[in-house]
């Protein structure tokens, strides 16, 4: 076998089961790749010892024919998921030394399925960002570069480390969280598949909260089928999360094989935003044609409140964040700047512990919830949110899924937008609607930009209809036959 890191997750499953490769070999290959990719800064914490122990157990089970679904599969975990005994930072100074004595439900399920933890991936601080530049541990570099350029590009955010780790083949699968596009946009920027399932499909227990009504766990993989396998393992009801849904989890992997024949696909006219590059528009049109070629019918749909989505999102998410992040006060855990006066201690600890973007959002959110402004901002935004959800309900009465671009641009350079929060927030224009409505969305790599960077298409589906999302995603993937990969420039010789 040439390079074990080139296997897809499903291929690796098969190879492990027929004992063509051991979990030990598979994990070592990925640990080496991680070592070689230090410059990408994908990981905040690497866990080789942990990985080797889990690999050993995986090999024992494989030998006894007791393999679980993800037995021996190397996985990268966004450092927003609490992992027992393994540092969990949210890429924030305030949690730099925090080691949880508990495990998130999503990762509990992954380890129970035999997955192997290779490390905790970098992200925007508290998942607040679209470029990974707000991480207190420095930005992640996108493994992709523009043709003929060595400019450093963002992998997107906030789950930039997970996306880049998959693109650079440092793990076979990774978890992310998506509050406004934090899985789908980095997936598009790195030529990987990323799915955010329906709100409530996965438990949020043990995931460091950003905006509770929008946060949802999801996965990255190199193809749609791998993503389907992973998502099934992390889905399901959890009594510890009141917002998780008590409903059966379908076989997503099987769904990817069902095709799109006879499906109706909506093309929302409001997603043609000014300033979007022509090549993205063209790819979108191409995507619709691919689906029609496979027997689907594409029709125009209207999502009239789309233009209010971004402002509503940037009220609701910061409002919830301002409250969720109040617990980081230096009293019980995390960074404390000791002071004799309580208020001084709060102020200094939080000022030192939170980065600029996090502070900005806490301020915005606090303002939006303040007496006298609540109705004008928070309540109004909630009404907009309801209208956006209704837009989708009406559209889904006519179509099975909706096709859009994932992001309005390809990966951009580090530093290009970090001085302009509004320009940065515009990255989420096609993805926030899915979070506001709570519906599932997948980003699938569909082509390259003129500069040689990956571009993604997004498929949105009805709540709890991830199966359709996977079917359409797989159809795009098949037609696009996207097999480009970044040159491994990061490998230190």
């Amino acid at each position, binding site marked *: 076998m040439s390079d074990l890191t080139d296997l897809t997750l499903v291929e690796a499953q098969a190879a492990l089961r027929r004992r063509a490769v051991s979990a030990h070999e598979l994990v070592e290959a990925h640990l080496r790749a991680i070592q070689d990719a230090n410059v990408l800064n994908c990981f905040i914490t690497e866990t080789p010892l942990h990985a080797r122990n889990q690999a050993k157990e995986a090999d024992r089970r494989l030998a006894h024919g007791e393999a679980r679904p993800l037995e021996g599969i190397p996985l990268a975990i966004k450092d927003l998921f*609490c992992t027992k005994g393994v540092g969990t930072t949210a890429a924030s100074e305030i949690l730099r030394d925090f080691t949880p004595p*508990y495990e998130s439900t999503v990762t509990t399920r992954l380890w129970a399925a035999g997955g192997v933890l290779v490390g905790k991936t970098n992200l925007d601080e508290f998942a607040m960002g679209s470029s990974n530049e707000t991480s207190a541990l420095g930005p992640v570099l996108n493994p992709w570069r523009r043709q003929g350029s060595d400019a450093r590009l963002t992998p997107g955010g906030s789950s930039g480390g997970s996306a880049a780790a998959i693109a650079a083949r440092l793990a076979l699968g990774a978890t992310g969280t998506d509050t406004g596009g934090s899985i789908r946009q980095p997936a598009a920027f790195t030529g990987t598949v990323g799915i955010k399932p329906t709100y409530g499909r996965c438990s949020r227990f043990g995931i460091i909260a950003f905006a*509770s009504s929008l946060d949802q766990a999801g996965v990255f993989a190199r193809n749609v089928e791998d993503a389907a396998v992973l998502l099934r393992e992390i889905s399901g009801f959890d009594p*510890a999360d009141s*917002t998780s849904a008590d409903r059966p989890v379908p076989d997503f992997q099987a769904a990817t094989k069902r095709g799109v024949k006879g499906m109706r696909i909506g093309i929302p006219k409001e997603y043609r935003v000014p300033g979007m590059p022509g090549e993205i528009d063209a790819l979108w049109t191409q995507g619709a044609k691919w689906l029609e070629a496979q027997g689907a019918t594409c029709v125009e749909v209207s999502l009239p409140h789309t233009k209010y989505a971004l402002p509503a999102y940037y009220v609701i998410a910061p409002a919830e964040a301002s409250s969720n992040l*109040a*617990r980081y006060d230096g*009293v019980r855990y995390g960074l404390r700047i000791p002071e004799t006066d309580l208020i001084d201690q709060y102020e200094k600890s939080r000022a030192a512990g939170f980065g600029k973007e996090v502070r900005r959002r806490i301020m915005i959110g606090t303002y939006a919830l303040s*007496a006298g402004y609540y109705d004008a901002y928070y309540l109004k935004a909630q009404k907009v949110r309801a209208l956006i959800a209704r837009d989708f309900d009406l559209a889904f009465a006519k179509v099975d899924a909706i096709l859009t671009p994932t992001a309005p641009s390809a990966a951009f350079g580090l530093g290009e937008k970090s001085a302009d929060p509004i320009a940065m927030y515009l990255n989420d224009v096609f993805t926030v609607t899915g979070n506001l409505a709570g519906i599932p969305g997948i980003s699938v790599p569909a082509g390259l930009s003129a500069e040689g960077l990956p571009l993604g298409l997004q498929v949105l589906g009805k709540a709890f209809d991830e199966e359709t999302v996977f079917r359409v995603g797989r159809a795009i993937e098949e037609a696009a036959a996207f097999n480009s990969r970044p040159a491994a420039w990061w490998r230190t010789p």
Partner: protein
Amino acid sequence: MSDRASGLIKGETGDWEMVIGLEVHAQVVSQAKLFSGASATYGGDPNAKVSLIDAGFPGMLPSINRVCVEQAVRTGLGLRARINLTSVFDRKNYFYPDLPAGYQISQYKQPIVGEGEVEIDLPDGSTRRIGIERLHLEQDAGKSLHDQHPRFSYVDLNRAGVALMEIVSKPDLRTPEEAGAYVRKLRSILRYLGTCDGNMEEGSLRADVNVSVRKPGAPLGTRCEIKNVNSVRFVMQAIEIEARRQIRVLEEGGKIDQETRLYDPNKGETRAMRSKEEAHDYRYFPDPDLLPLVLSEDFVGAIRATLPELPDDKKARFIRDYGLPAYDAMVLVAEKETAAYYEAVAQGRDPKTAANWVMGDLFGLLNKAGRDIAESPVSPAALGGLLDLIADGTLSGRLAKDVFALMFESGKDAAAIVEDKGLKQVSDTGALEAAISDVLAKETAKVAEYKAGKVKLLGYFMGQVMKATGGKANPGVVQELLKKRLEG
């Protein structure tokens, strides 16, 4: 308080009326906290009853404790209140070290229980209905300990996350006495329902008191809120003191600032904690970690079906079935245990006699011993036995009191004590005749006065005979024999 005729306070400028509303925080009786599985019981080493949820660790989520919801609904039904089938939990945001998450989960706009009422019992035996505005569920905070170390404050999170019911009255109360009666009645109802143990010393029940004053008939004045008052007596004192302070300010031409105040029972004053300007902006918003709480009619119906007889109904029944005066009935039903005790004693006996013994001798000795009725050394059956000995003439009322004291002391029953001490009442006419002859022989002068018409002396002769027989003589028989001898 002589200057407070008909509930008004007499000031320099005339009479003032108090307007009082209470927010009572009642700790829910449940094994676990409102949103975590940690123990909700009182006491224990600091921070021994704290889950990661209570301590506000990253990624921790609340999930509601069904028992606490049932208790809130049960309480709502006991307060004859509307149960809201949909209610919403909100976050009340503020920073304090004993509030780990930086917000308290409470119910703001949509509480679980809406309007209801409590009937308070006034000393003259009359009652008055006090409106309940709402009842909502919320988390308690932890406890900051400022006296453990010269430079540091410590935090104990044992209470953090324990379920509280905040029961808000309408501003229907007009005197400290009414407020006291309201808290006592509310406490009684909660204890009947088993939804709060009502223990004010342990902080299971505490009140925020809103007080304003006005000239009778005038619009409402500006109110002040006195926080965290933890006994009925202090509630009444705080209201009186605060109302008089407000009257003083107003009569001196000042104005009342809406503010939060603290009652200091040692100094007998209230003082400002923070003014409206310094008041927190709590930035309430619906807690996105919790879905709206939706109850079914069946859920409420099942709780309704298990409600016990409550004090008001029991009181009415005591008046109706036992023929008790309203006052007696009110006193006897205040505690469920007392009412049960009384009913056991009254069973098959004279109800009024039973009431007198329970409220008089029993309460007296219990009070003196600092015990409550559950710890009474005299069981209802034993007290009943004593009453039976009075009824059949074995014991005189006076003897019975002595016997009762011995019963209380020894835990023995009445018959055994009568036997041991030879206290049996003497009704044997022969023995009594002899005693009477002795007395009359010694008191010839008084006998002459009696015969001359001073019949009041009968009592005196009675006393002498009783004394001569060591109190054991049956007074009815003595009286009869005396009359016969003196008038015969």
